[in-house]
């Protein structure tokens, strides 16, 4: 029977850890995959760059490519002063990319398909922007909401609109990543269900059976195409999350348009 497409997102408590104030705390499958992603990144980069050769081999070249990719993105968006945020941005990019890619493996759990995870990451980014903005620029940071060259009578509306658009940033940042991961995996599960449903007609035997198995090739082709598309989306969403982080950090470094 075709599986329920929402079932793959269920949080399972693997190791119960008691409770804090009535809220049950446990080591869940989500936590397991987060730890797995971090372990994969750390061990992968440590092993790849252990040789530290001047002319890199394949693994070191791959690690350097990822490093330069994020470094160029940050340098272009936030300037040279933004490079102090590089460890943060790089960790963010690698974590989101690895969690997205791990979710593509059949049977693995997609950490970023839960809005609370992506919301925590987005709040971390916006919190960094706000705290750094106020520490560095004091109340001048609020100049972010006052675009230059606006006539005085329009200013109150512009400030309100800019404020709302700023506050919608963590929401859009988290929702984009979460919804892309959720929609992709639900669609994959639905098409996989179609393959099973059509192929299952073979049990009834005869003409319907043959047609069923032959017809099952269509959702199979769609599922293959969708999987390829999902790999692209996994990388693209990690990149978009990172570049938007870099743009918001640029706002913290240079408030006022």
């Amino acid at each position, binding site marked *: 029977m075709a599986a329920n497409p*929402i079932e793959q997102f269920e949080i399972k408590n693997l190791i119960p850890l008691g409770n804090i104030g009535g809220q049950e705390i446990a080591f869940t499958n989500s936590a397991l995959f987060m730890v797995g992603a971090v372990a994969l990144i750390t061990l992968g980069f440590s092993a790849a760059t252990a040789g530290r050769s001047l002319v890199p081999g394949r693994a070191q070249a791959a690690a350097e490519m990822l490093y330069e990719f994020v470094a160029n993105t940050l340098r272009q968006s936030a300037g040279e002063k933004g490079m102090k945020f590089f460890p943060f941005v790089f960790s963010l990019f690698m974590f989101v990319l690895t969690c997205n890619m791990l979710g593509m493996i059949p049977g693995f759990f997609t950490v970023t398909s839960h809005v609370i995870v992506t919301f925590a990451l987005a709040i971390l980014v916006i919190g960094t922007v706000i705290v750094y903005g106020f520490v560095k620029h004091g109340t001048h940071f609020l100049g972010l909401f006052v675009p230059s060259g606006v006539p005085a009578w329009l200013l109150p509306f512009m400030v309100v609109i800019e404020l709302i658009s700023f506050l919608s940033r963590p929401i*859009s940042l988290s*929702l*984009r990543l979460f*919804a*892309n991961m*959720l*929609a992709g995996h639900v669609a994959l599960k639905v098409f996989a269900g179609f393959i099973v449903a059509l192929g299952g007609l073979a049990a009834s035997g005869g003409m319907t059976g043959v047609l069923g198995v032959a017809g099952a090739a269509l959702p199979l082709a769609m599922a293959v195409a969708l999987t390829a598309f999902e790999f692209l989306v996994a990388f*693209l*969403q990690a*990149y*978009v999350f990172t*570049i938007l982080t870099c743009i918001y950090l640029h706002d913290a470094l240079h408030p006022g348009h």
Partner: protein
Amino acid sequence: MDPVAAKYIGAGLACLGMGLAAMGVGNIFGNYLSGALRNPSAADSQFGRTFIGAALAEGLGIFALVVALVLLFVA
């Protein structure tokens, strides 16, 4: 109107929003391609920015999908 029926109608309307978002995404790539055909040497430098713009436009379509899913499965 029966609230369950209203939810299904709302979910269908949200999917119309997704169609409009798809038009937006196609717009971005169409503009990139027409610019690339006029100025092929500048095409590679703007390729990354094209995908950023497409991801931002696609994001809004995905928000519409989230509205549809919330209507169908959550509320």
